[in-house]
C-alpha cells in the first residue's frame, strides 16, 4: 500500500491508484472554477483539466493521469 496525504489527511492506496482516485476517496471536489464552483474530474482521461491539483507544491497537475507515489502531498484549492 502507498501512503499519501490529501489536504493533510493521511491515507493509503493500492499500487496503481491514480492521484484523482485518491482524492475521491476523501472528497468529491477538485479545482475551483474561475467563478468559484467546485468541480469534479469530468473526463477521467486527461482531456478536461478539471481534476487539476497541487502535487508536492507543483500546481496544475492532471491528477487523473498520474499515479500515486509514496509520500505524495496532494492538495486541492
Amino acid at each position: 500500500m502507498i501512503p499519501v496525504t490529501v489536504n493533510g489527511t493521511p491515507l493509503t492506496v493500492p499500487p496503481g491508484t491514480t492521484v484523482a482516485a485518491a482524492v475521491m476517496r476523501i472528497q468529491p471536489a477538485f479545482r475551483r472554477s474561475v467563478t468559484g464552483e467546485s468541480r469534479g474530474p469530468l473526463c477521467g482521461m486527461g482531456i478536461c483539466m478539471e481534476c487539476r491539483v497541487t502535487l508536492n507544491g507543483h500546481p496544475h497537475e492532471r491528477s487523473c493521469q498520474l499515479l500515486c507515489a509514496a509520500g505524495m502531498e496532494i492538495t486541492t484549492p
Partner: protein
Amino acid sequence: MTRTLVIGGGPAGLAAAWAAAQSGQAVTLLDDNPALGGQIWRGDIPARYRRFLDPRITVQTGVQIHSASQLPPADRIILATGTRELFLPFPGWTLPHVLGAGGLQALVKGGLPIAGKRVVVAGSGPLLLAVAAYLRRRGAKILLVAEQAPYPRIAAFTRGLWRHPAKLLEAAQLGFGLRYRPDSWPLRADPGSVTLQGHGVLRCDYLACGFGLVVNTELPELLGCRVENGRVLTDADQRTTVPHIFFAGAGSVDRSLLEGQIAGFGPERGRALHAARAAAVAFDRCIDIAFALRSELLSLTTPETIVCRCEDVPFGAIWPHRDWRSAKLQTRCGMGPCQGRICGPALAHLCGWPAASVRPPIFPTRLENLLDLRD
C-alpha cells in the same frame, strides 16, 4: 529497417505496433497515459490481446513531448490518438458528482472504490451498457441506464444483431439484469440527484454521462493531416493526406484493432484485412444511425448553463456570436486549459460551428518546458 513511430497505446496503437514489429519494422510506441491500453482498457488489457505486447516494441508511457527533436527518428508515423466523450451541457452538468461514463470507468480502473455507490448511467451509445456492466461488476448499484435514442431505433438495432451473434451475446451478457431505458436523458442535475426525461428524479452518488465519442484530431491536424467533419481522412491503407503519416482507430474496438493492423503491416499484408475492416465500419455505421442524437437534446442547454467549464462561459453569452473565433475572442469560451476539447464539440453540436484550428502546444505545458527548448 523501417523505423515506425506509433503514438497512442490503445487498441489501435497496440495492434499497429504489434503488426509493424511482426513485419520486421523497428517500432517505438509512445503514450501520455501512465499505462498502455487506451481509455477503454487503461492498463487492464484483456488476455486475448496481450499478444500485441511484442517484446521487440520499445514502449514509453507517461511521456510528454515538447519538440520534434525529442522524438525518435522515424520513416513512418502511425497516429492512434483515440477518442474522448461528447458532453452536452445541461443544467447542473458542472457539479462534482456528474462525470463522463467512460470517465467514471477510467477513474474506477484508476482505483476509485465504487462498491455500494448508486450510479445513474445516461447519454447515448453502446458504451453506456459496457460502463454500467463494468461498474456493476465492481459492486456499484446501477439505478438506471438512460439512453436518449428512441425505443423503435434501439429495437431495430437489437433485431439486426442476429447477424452478429458474438455482439448479440455480448449485449445480452452486459445488459442482463440492468434497467435499460430508451427515450430517457438527463434534464438537470442537482447535488446528489439527477432528473431524467420520462423518469423523474433519482438520488444518486454519481451520474455517469456521455453522448457519444469525439475523435482526438488535434495531433493529426497539427501535423498537417486533413480532417473533415471530425474525422481524419485516410485511404484504404490508413494513410492520411501526409504520405508518411497513418491514422488508425476512433471507432469500436474491433474496428480499431483492424485499422491498427492494416496501418502497422503496411499495404501488402494489410490488404487481407480490408474485408473485415469494411464489415466493422458497416457495423459502426449501424451504431451511428441507431444512436444518433435526437433534436430535443438541443434544448437542454439553457442560457444560464455553463458551456465552457474552463472559463465559466454561459451559453447565453455565446448567442451574439456567429462563429467560434468571435466567441473565443469576446467571451474567452474555449480559451482555457482544455483548449476547447470539451466545449468545442458541444458547441459544434449546439450551434453547428466547425472546430477552430489547432496551435501548438496541443496540451498546456509549463513555461520551463518551453524555455528548455531554447538550449
